[in-house]
């Protein structure tokens, strides 16, 4: 915990605000991790702050809630992280964690943290999950909606 707080603090100081970070880099010449930007706005107002220091515990707690209690809410879901924090590679597709540009590697490579999560978990958004998994409860809803829209048009 101490080391965690120290590192988190260092990170906060170093990359807390992009401006401050840029300045720090210029002044000291110390290379800093380049954290890729998310593709959508943050889910909560304090997301950035909260995640910087607490994403590891939040994720680990969420996994127990999901696996044991069936909590399928998007909040702190690992699939949500990799979807919103997807980084597009040269081939136009989201990169996997094998690529050093991956969001989850930006800081981890820098501070030498190694996580095993992606030995099992997909490290980029799945197309079909968007089509079938996440949106699927609405498959019929979508059909209903398009029916409705057609009706409205007429």
């Amino acid at each position, binding site marked *: 915990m101490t080391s965690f707080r120290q590192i988190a603090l260092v990170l906060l100081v170093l990359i807390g605000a992009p401006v401050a970070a840029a300045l720090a880099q210029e002044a000291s010449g110390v290379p800093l991790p380049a954290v890729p930007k998310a593709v959508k706005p943050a889910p909560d107002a304090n997301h950035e702050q909260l995640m910087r220091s607490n994403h590891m515990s939040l994720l680990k707690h969420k996994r*127990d809630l999901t696996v*044991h209690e069936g909590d*399928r809410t998007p909040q702190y879901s690992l699939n949500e992280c990799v979807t919103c924090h997807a980084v597009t590679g040269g081939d136009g597709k989201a990169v996997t964690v094998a690529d050093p540009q991956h969001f989850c590697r930006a800081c981890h490579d820098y501070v030498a943290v190694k996580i095993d999560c992606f030995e*099992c978990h997909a490290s980029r*958004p799945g197309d079909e999950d968007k089509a079938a998994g996440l949106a699927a409860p609405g498959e019929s809803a979508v059909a209903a909606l398009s029916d409705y829209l057609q009706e409205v048009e007429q």
Partner: protein
Amino acid sequence: MSCGTNRDCGCATSASPGVDAGRRAFLKSGAAFATVALTPTVTLMAFGAGDAAAQGAQERLNPAARWGLLIDVSKCGDGCNECVTACRKENGWEDTGHPATDAQWIRKVTLTDPKSGASRELPVMCQHCDEPPCVDVCPTGASFKRADGIVLVDKHRCIGCRYCMMACPYKARSFIHEALIDQKPHAPRGKGTVESCTLCVHRIDSGRNPACVESCNATGGGAMMFGDLNDPESAIAKRVAELASTQLRDDLGLDPGVHYVNL
């Protein structure tokens, strides 16, 4: 930190809305940061419950349910493999060319009476026992039964010892021997852990049928039915009450959640 299977722990997302809003306001305030760092994450988790309901996603399983399957063997077509194919596609397990060790969440089994020569085909998967021997033998608590009767491996806790595979009378579990890439986002799988049919828990939690049942009814023989065995009003419970169904190896007294008729 972890809740484990103790469902009464304080971390559940059941905080009342009042408490919740208060916590959220508190967390959003400047003081939140210190709180976050100093208290167990349990506190943190309580503050999301509100959005969850708003988003419509399931917040918690239904502990009163007992999910199960009813398989009408007489409708299970000879050579039909729809359920197996659908499961494979849904959960991303496939042949790697090593039949002895490949993952197998569901398989078609042919039973032949040696005297008459009559034979039957049926799908066999994790039977989601009420008294699962795989759970009894697991040294880490990875093998567990969800409150709604689904028997699962918590792969985060699985050390790959494979005791559960030995304990299972249905040979329903398999072990992942090779490193994998490109898993399905909704079905994480990885080397060194045991796995088995999850009854498509990710689908159940969003109100859908398991993939095998869906495909059996769409393009197969329509032999499979999914539902809540505990709910006397459910179609499956009515059918189970009305037809004399069998559970595989019921002599073992494990009370599987998978029932067969016309076996």
